[in-house]
């Protein structure tokens, strides 16, 4: 058996075992607590599977597929917008001390503000769908920006020197050296940003969204005490987030092959 195949099997086995262990602990604790506030794994998964298979309307009048797609669309746009704005700013900030100084004060003041606090602002200044997209944007923006700045700053200074001695001026330096050299770091930032943006989905959907969403679904179910649905929704959010990050990691890995660092 090839070494690589064997490693993959081991990884999968360990992963499966740890999930199994986690679910068992969950079940034990749930049995111990014996409260509707902590449903057992069986009930939760049964609810989840029933939700997905039957795709019935819940009491907000929407299908679970509508909730899922609404959330995914919001995160997609919020994340996309964050990437488009953060990457250029990050590249320039990493490269030019002036630009970094100019932007870093504002960035460092805004960054600690939790996305949740932006809700009234989003309600007032944006109309649907931009209001919820904005919350996702705020969440995803800063990890992407910071990663980009760091990846530019950590470029091996010698290759910059080499490029200069090969005749590269500012523009070529940026286009042919800075950008390719920081691609991998940017990719890492994108992966983190997508994760954070997805986590903001619950906050984002409190701005008065049209068309539902997974975050809204969880809040609704929680407010009426249907915790099986809450946990099922949480697992759904977690699973979707996991898939998204996994695909980013895959892209990241392929890119690092290209970038020559693997």
């Amino acid at each position: 058996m090839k070494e690589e195949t064997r490693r993959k099997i081991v990884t999968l086995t360990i992963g499966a075992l740890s999930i199994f262990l986690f679910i068992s602990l969950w079940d034990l604790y749930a049995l111990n607590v014996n409260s509707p506030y902590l449903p057992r794994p069986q009930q939760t998964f049964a609810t989840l599977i029933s939700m997905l298979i039957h795709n019935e309307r819940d009491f907000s009048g929407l299908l679970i597929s509508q909730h899922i797609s609404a959330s995914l669309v919001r995160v997609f746009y919020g994340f996309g917008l964050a990437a488009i704005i953060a990457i250029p700013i990050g590249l320039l900030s990493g490269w030019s001390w002036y630009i970094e100084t100019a932007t870093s004060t504002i960035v460092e003041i805004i960054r600690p503000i939790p996305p949740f606090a932006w809700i009234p602002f989003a309600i007032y200044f944006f109309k649907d769908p931009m209001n919820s997209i904005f919350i996702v944007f705020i969440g995803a923006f800063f990890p992407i920006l910071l990663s980009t700045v760091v990846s530019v700053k950590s470029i091996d200074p010698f290759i910059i020197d080499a490029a200069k001695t090969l005749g590269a001026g500012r523009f070529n330096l940026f286009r042919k050296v800075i950008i390719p050299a920081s691609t991998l770091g940017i990719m890492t930032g994108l992966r983190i940003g997508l994760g954070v943006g997805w986590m903001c989905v619950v906050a984002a959907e409190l701005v008065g969204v049209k068309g539902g969403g997974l975050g809204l679904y969880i809040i609704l179910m929680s407010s009426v005490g249907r915790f099986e649905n809450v946990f099922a929704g949480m697992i759904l959010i977690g699973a979707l987030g996991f898939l998204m990050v996994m695909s980013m990691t895959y892209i990241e890995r392929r890119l690092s092959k290209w970038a020559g660092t693997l």
Partner: protein
Amino acid sequence: MKNEGPQRSLGGFDLSQRRKVWTLIAVTVAVIVVGGLVVAFHAGLFAPSPKAATVRVGWLTGDLHQLAYFVAKNRTVGGGKSFFEKYNLNLTDAAPGGYINGPTMMDAFAAGKVDIGLLGSTPAITKHLNAQVNTTIVGQCNEIGSALITKHPISNLNDLKGKTIATPGPGTIQYFLLLRLAEKEGVGIGNFTLIQLAPGDMRVAMEAGRIDAFIAWEPYCADAVVNNVGVIYKNSSDIWPNHLCCIVAVHKTFAVNNPDIVINFLKAHIEATSWINKAKASGLGSADYNLLIDIAVNFTGRSPAVIERALGNINYKFDVDDRFMGCFIDFTYKLIQYGIVAPNRIEALGYRDVYEFANKYVSMSYLTEAKRT
């Protein structure tokens, strides 16, 4: 860069610099630890837990429907002694500042943090049926007290076709009020875009033109009207006369173990509610009325104009009479019908049907006893 500047010593940093780094690390750690302790202290982590004898009361932040609680706490009303003190009650807030909404308070009940609570009837029903929170209803706070506010005046709901209306969420009484109104006026609910907003965010949304109407409870309605953000289209009393709103709930175990406390609480609650109605009736200018407005302004933070307007739309009532029970059963049926209560929950909790549930979940005996004196 290679070979730039002076040679470094073998250690990497020269000695004074290393000491500087360690000092910096030590200071940072110390600041974090001390800061954490200060925060924990203020958050009450080291505070002694309240004595078991103190009764923990939950109420909703800024909720005008629960005015009776604050009236019963007030010494001026009682002429030197508050109504609670008169009945020897030692009360404390379950949550400083109140709970942000009913469902949260029900969660606190479930966690054993609340003994007596004033909250909306909806979460009291749904959380009990769906999540088996072990509470029982012993009295009422108020009837009606909600309204549909529109950005621009309308003649009927047809004018809102294709527009956006905000509700506090499907499953709330307000949502059902809207459904009922739409049915009454013969406009299909599908003609509107319904979104969910916290009532606190509704005025902002209307001001910004994000929504064309909202339905919420007082004083959010009065607030919008007084500040010229919207106009009132219909009071909830016109949509569903005498519909129930906030109630007094008690943790079942607490009630069984401390019936006297519950009865005494209700006695104070009855006196406070009666006083409110008397003060309202005595009208503008009377001492009682001014005191009432004062109390309300103090605990809600709203202006007197908003309070006065809102009070006109709320009916403070303590009794759980037939009128109440009729509405209660009707509402429970709706919650089941619309799927807000999961199927078969009534049976799962051991009730034969909705009637038995209503009669068991609302414990009239305490109120009956309290009324006697």
